[in-house]
């Protein structure tokens, strides 16, 4: 399972690097709506995954581990909106998201490291606040 995960990670990271999603200018131009490349990339990924997952779910696909494949679904809660708004701000400032930040140092972009350090610090901050004042039930997902 871990070896499979590593191989799938390699494919995912290869895609990030191949499309240069680990480049501030590429993401910044996308968010300035200057070029459609990255939107098309994400849309085509979803367009491939959505029908296949739907078919697998309908066909009651059993994963090699033995379990019935279950798509992770949840209802909209406040945390999704507030959290994603905060994330969107960070995405705009850095031109990076958690995945592409990992692919930055891999391309020699040393300044990906402060982004990664920030992500870890932000997660810890969020967890410490959540401990003090539980805004929403804590579940491990993502």
């Amino acid at each position, binding site marked *: 399972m*871990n070896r499979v995960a590593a191989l799938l990670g390699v494919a995912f990271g*290869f895609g990030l690097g191949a499309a240069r999603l680990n480049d501030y200018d590429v993401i910044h131009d996308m968010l300035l709506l200057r070029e459609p490349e990255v939107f098309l990339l994400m849309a085509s990924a979803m367009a491939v995954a959505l029908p296949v997952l739907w078919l697998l779910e309908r066909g009651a696909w059993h994963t090699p581990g033995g379990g019935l494949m279950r798509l992770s*679904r949840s209802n909209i809660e406040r945390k999704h909106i507030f959290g994603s708004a905060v994330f969107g701000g960070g995405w705009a400032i850095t031109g990076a998201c958690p995945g592409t930040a990992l692919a930055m140092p891999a*391309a020699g972009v040393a300044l990906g490291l402060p982004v990664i350090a920030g992500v870890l*610090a932000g*997660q810890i*901050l969020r967890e410490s606040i959540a401990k003090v004042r539980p805004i929403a039930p804590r579940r491990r*997902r*993502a």
Partner: protein
Amino acid sequence: MLPAFPDRVPWYVVGPLMGIVVVLVYALLNKRLGVSGSYTQARMFVLGRSVAEPWRIWFLVGIVGGATLTTVLRGGFVVGTDYGALGRFLPLGLVVPTLFIGGALIGFGTRWAEGCTSGHGLAGIPSRSPASFASAATFFATAVGVTFFVHVVTGGAL
């Protein structure tokens, strides 16, 4: 001699590849692909706490490996402090704290929303999860809004 690895592999190659990865993570591991969760698991590992989903750490290691492979195919590493237009706009002494703070917003927000561009976007939307539709709409709208704000405030430099 192999043809040179393209500077930017087009979306219609990389997009479907990523879609297939999303499908395989579900079909083989029965999990929703997502990178922000990998950070959490890696943190637990480093702190010596119990790791609930070790596969996510392997996935993270794979991402770094796969991205490194593209760098190697393009002719190898040149480590530098370039950061595109942002790096040209701000001196290095300001870029680093800016990126750290921006990164903290990413970490705080994705931990709160329980997903990022990959978890709620690439994987969550094909899962037809209402929370992911709402999250993706929110982070796209906010990111575009903040980017345009930065664009105006910096007089078009960014």
